[in-house]
């Protein structure tokens, strides 16, 4: 027996209020999940960037160290080359000075330039010319000067002049 003229509606658990509540929380949860995903992605990206930068920095450090070595080596080359060029120029001037030092009346037959000395072989008309015109300037340059004479056939004298410069250390030791 029917008590109503309309058919009964099935009652659902998802009432309008529940649907509203669920949609509200769904939106909230979606937003939270999106934020969380964003944070996860950014943290991963930061980690990757950090690793890349660290690797690049290590490469730069290697390259920098290599460049430092190259710079220091080129500077060494530069210093050595300047020393060599200066030594060559000084040597040239020394030889020029030596030949300028010998008076016209004295003829050299041999000159040996040593690291710390000079040995001259030659011929002089007499000992005085040698003593005044060659030995005197040599004495002013060298610390020790030794001369020996041998008579030549025409009345001139052959001489051997041995001259040494003492090392600064030896001089200091003597003092």
């Amino acid at each position, binding site marked *: 027996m029917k008590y109503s003229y309309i058919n009964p509606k099935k009652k659902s658990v998802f009432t309008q209020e529940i649907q509203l509540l669920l949609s509200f929380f769904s939106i909230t949860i979606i937003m939270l999940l999106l934020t969380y995903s964003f944070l996860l992605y950014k943290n991963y990206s930061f980690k990757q960037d950090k690793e890349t930068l660290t690797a690049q920095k290590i490469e730069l450090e290697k390259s920098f160290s290599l*460049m430092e070595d190259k710079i220091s*080596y*080129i500077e060494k080359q530069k210093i050595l080359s300047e020393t060599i060029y200066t030594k060559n120029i000084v040597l040239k001037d020394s030889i020029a000075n030596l030949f300028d030092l010998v008076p016209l009346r004295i003829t050299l037959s041999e000159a040996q330039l040593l690291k710390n000395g000079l040995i001259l072989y030659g011929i002089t008309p007499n000992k005085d010319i040698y003593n005044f015109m060659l030995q005197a300037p040599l004495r002013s340059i060298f610390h020790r000067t030794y001369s020996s004479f041998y008579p030549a056939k025409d009345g001139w004298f052959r001489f051997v002049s041995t001259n040494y410069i003492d090392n600064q250390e030896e001089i200091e030791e003597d003092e």
Partner: protein
Amino acid sequence: MSSISRQYIYLMIVSMVLFIFVLLFSFLVLIPEGKEYRTKRVELKKITREFRNYSNFHDETEETLQDLRSKNRRIISAFDTIFNPDRFEKENKSYFSELKVSSLSEPTAENDFSVYEVNTTSQISSPKSFYDFLDAINKSAYMIAINFPIDFKRDGEIIKSSFTMKVYCNNKDTNATASESKKK
């Protein structure tokens, strides 16, 4: 009345569950992750700044190296060039009536360089030729130091001279360091 009440309780329970979930999720997951994000961002900024500074410094050093290379090109090339006695004789024979260069001695190490000793015998017409030779040595393709003893001996109208030369080259291991060109 009883149906409203049940509905209300049901609503309350769902609300509470969802609210607790949101709270727990926020405090246990989202906020720590956010903190980590902030820390990492600051750290990355710091690393980026440091890297940029280091990179600038690296570039400046590279510029210095290029500058040094271009200014000292002749010196670097002279240290790189292996001494060739025949070529040396050919290049310098104009200063001498006769020039003979002995073969290279075994190299000795001097600081970071290899040093070869070469004995030279020559004949010159006047000391001026020797001065010109010494000037030319400083402009030659090799790094050469004229070394003692130097002997000049008169023989009629000519002067026989003999002297030792020290030829400086890069050590094999450092050679690459100095002369390597920038490959980019």
